């Protein structure tokens, strides 16, 4: 039997979207540090503006360096394309405003990154978009929360910081039964651990700041379209007029007619990036591309190191609980085994057997783990969510998100695992003696 001719994940991580620079032969993707691109003539200029031709006009709309990154993440995710944004938050915002207007509603997992929770719970209601938060494990709750004006279901592949595993296939099936798309934040997993489109999600957002760039150097986001959701389907088309009706802001273009597969991306770029303007800088795209080149190698090591640390912590008497889906006692252990066969990532939380003061002492005693508000760095990181990333959440919301006063979140880096364990061991000892 003939086999399809396709490239593997590792090859795509290095090459997708890029060719040697036609002008210079440069092998690395050049940083096209320019605002604008010279037109050949007036006809070409007009054609580019009107989407009659493909190409770059102005770097807010598109840029060659960013375009390489957009193709690369789309290739790795198995999507049709992507848009690089100023941050992960900008990618989430772009997805939402492309799909809906005031009067619309989102159903979201309540186990979200604090910044996403802020956007949905506090900021978007000011613009007429409301969100109902549900227990991500409770499929009935997802279903009950869907209203006639719901336009999107949203969750994280791995909840932050409790690592609730989103049952992407079942939530996607529920969304599709209601003519709705499922948007998934895949920041913690990256396409190396899970490709949500393989499990029927429709859209993916990444904070590329994290594992994709991998070195804690840049802020950036990516919004990826599977191209699979049928915006023109009978049970969907009335819900998404931004895609199925003429858009006066672009010569009455009907995006779902322009492309059956890339309608969402067209609108997101031609309206959302154009008008809200949260584009990615080409220098940032370059750094993220450098990171993605080694994504498979890094993710394997991140996961391996995280497992070593989980093994250490679960035996430690000063550790009350570890929330990691690879542990048999985790409520999502079976689901993680199915959806995340390569591992459940390198960010997880645990609770100390102690007071808030002891938690503070623990964090301040660490030497290799850096105390800061980020994850997915090559260097190991630590934070106290209740007082930092999730501090705006109410006590009840914190409880629902699985966060206590004693919860510590680790992002396990690429150091020698023995050195990390030694660091943790000393800090746990110091905290326990406080």
């Amino acid at each position, binding site marked *: 039997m003939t086999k399809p001719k396709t*490239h593997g994940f590792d090859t795509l991580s290095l090459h*997708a*979207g890029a060719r040697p620079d036609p002008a210079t032969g440069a092998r690395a993707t050049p940083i096209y540090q320019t605002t604008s691109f010279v037109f050949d003539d007036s006809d070409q200029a007009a054609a580019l503006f009107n989407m009659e031709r493909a*190409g770059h006009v102005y770097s807010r709309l598109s840029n060659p360096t960013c*375009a390489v990154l957009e*193709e690369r993440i789309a*290739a790795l995710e198995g999507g*049709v*394309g992507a848009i690089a944004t100023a941050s992960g938050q900008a990618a989430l915002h772009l997805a939402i405003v492309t799909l809906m207007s005031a009067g619309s509603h989102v159903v979201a997992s309540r186990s979200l990154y604090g910044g996403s929770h802020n956007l949905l719970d506090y900021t978007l209601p000011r613009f007429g978009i409301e969100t109902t938060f549900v227990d991500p494990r409770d499929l009935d709750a997802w279903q009950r929360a869907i209203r006639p004006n719901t336009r999107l279901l949203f969750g994280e592949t791995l909840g932050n910081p409790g690592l609730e595993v989103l049952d992407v296939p079942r939530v996607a099936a529920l969304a599709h039964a209601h003519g709705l798309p499922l948007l998934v934040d895949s920041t913690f997993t990256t396409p190396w651990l899970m490709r949500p489109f393989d499990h029927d999600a429709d859209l993916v957002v990444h904070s590329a700041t994290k594992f994709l760039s991998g070195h804690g150097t840049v802020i950036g986001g990516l919004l990826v379209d599977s191209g699979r959701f049928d915006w023109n389907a009978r049970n969907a088309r009335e819900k998404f007029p931004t895609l199925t009706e003429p858009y006066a802001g672009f010569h009455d273009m009907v995006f779902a007619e322009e492309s059956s*597969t890339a309608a969402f991306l067209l609108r997101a770029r031609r309206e959302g990036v154009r008008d809200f303007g949260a584009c990615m800088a080409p220098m940032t795209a370059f750094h993220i591309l450098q990171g993605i080149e080694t994504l498979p190698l890094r993710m394997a090591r991140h996961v391996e190191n995280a497992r070593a640390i989980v093994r250490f912590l679960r035996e430690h008497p000063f550790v009350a609980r570890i929330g990691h889906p690879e542990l048999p006692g985790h409520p999502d252990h079976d689901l993680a085994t199915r959806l995340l066969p390569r591992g459940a990532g390198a960010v997880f939380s645990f609770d100390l057997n102690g007071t808030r003061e002891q938690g503070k002492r623990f964090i301040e005693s660490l030497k290799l783990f850096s105390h800061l508000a980020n994850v997915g760095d090559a260097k190991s990181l630590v934070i106290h969510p209740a007082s930092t990333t999730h501090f705006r959440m109410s006590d009840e919301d914190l409880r629902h998100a699985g966060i206590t006063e004693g919860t510590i979140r680790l992002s396990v880096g690429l150091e020698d695992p023995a050195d990390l364990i030694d660091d943790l061991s000393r800090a746990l000892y110091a905290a326990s003696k406080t």
Partner: protein
Amino acid sequence: MQFDVAGRSVYAYTGSRPFVPARPTMLFVHGAANDHGVFALQSRYFAWHGMNAVALDLPGHGRSEGDALRSVEAIAEWLRDVLDALAVEGVNLVGHSMGSLAVLECAARHPQRVARLALLGASAPMPVSDDLLAAARRNDHLAYELINGWSFAPPSQLGANQWPGVWMLGNAIRLMERARDGVLATDLDACNRYANGVAAAAAVQCPALVIAGARDIMAPPRNTKALIAALRDARVVTLPDTGHALMAERPGEVLDALRSFLTAVE
């Protein structure tokens, strides 16, 4: 726009412009298990430059009703019905792959209706491999993967799309996945069985343009040459490092070739 052909609703993309009977018309015909969208970066230009761009969804494809037509000859006759429905004379026909065979046959059968003919990724015959046909008949996803693997030239397999941010391989396979069960098999069967290509080319009376990918393995170059030799008035544009998916791989160059052709044979 949506209009009726032989009692069935047909969709055609017109570049967000109204169809104006008084204007010259470019009719775009897609290939197997595709839709109008494969011509997005060619058709829209003409719609905004004084012409009607009519990029069809063939019956049973995209938003058009009915079942996929079972032979190239049937598609050619259906195209004549489209011309009747739109009351178009002197049309410019553009077809890709299976669509190229259909417009070729249509131009041969109805020479008085066709002003110019553009054949993209064309060959006669256009044989289809047994493995691909078998996979398509099983509605096996493998069929889409095989076509995708063969349709893009090696450089394009890694992307670097002129359309910023779009992964052309992913976009191509996702479009095919939208085809209803059986459509790809019907289309490929039609290509495989079509035996009249060279004779049809010899019967074409209007100027023709052949745009070929230098690395097209779906439409074998020797069969494209046979077609070109039979056409009495043919211009040929061969795109280097390009495969069968040439509108995606080289959107600007394909558009420029079409524009030059129109200008050259005013």
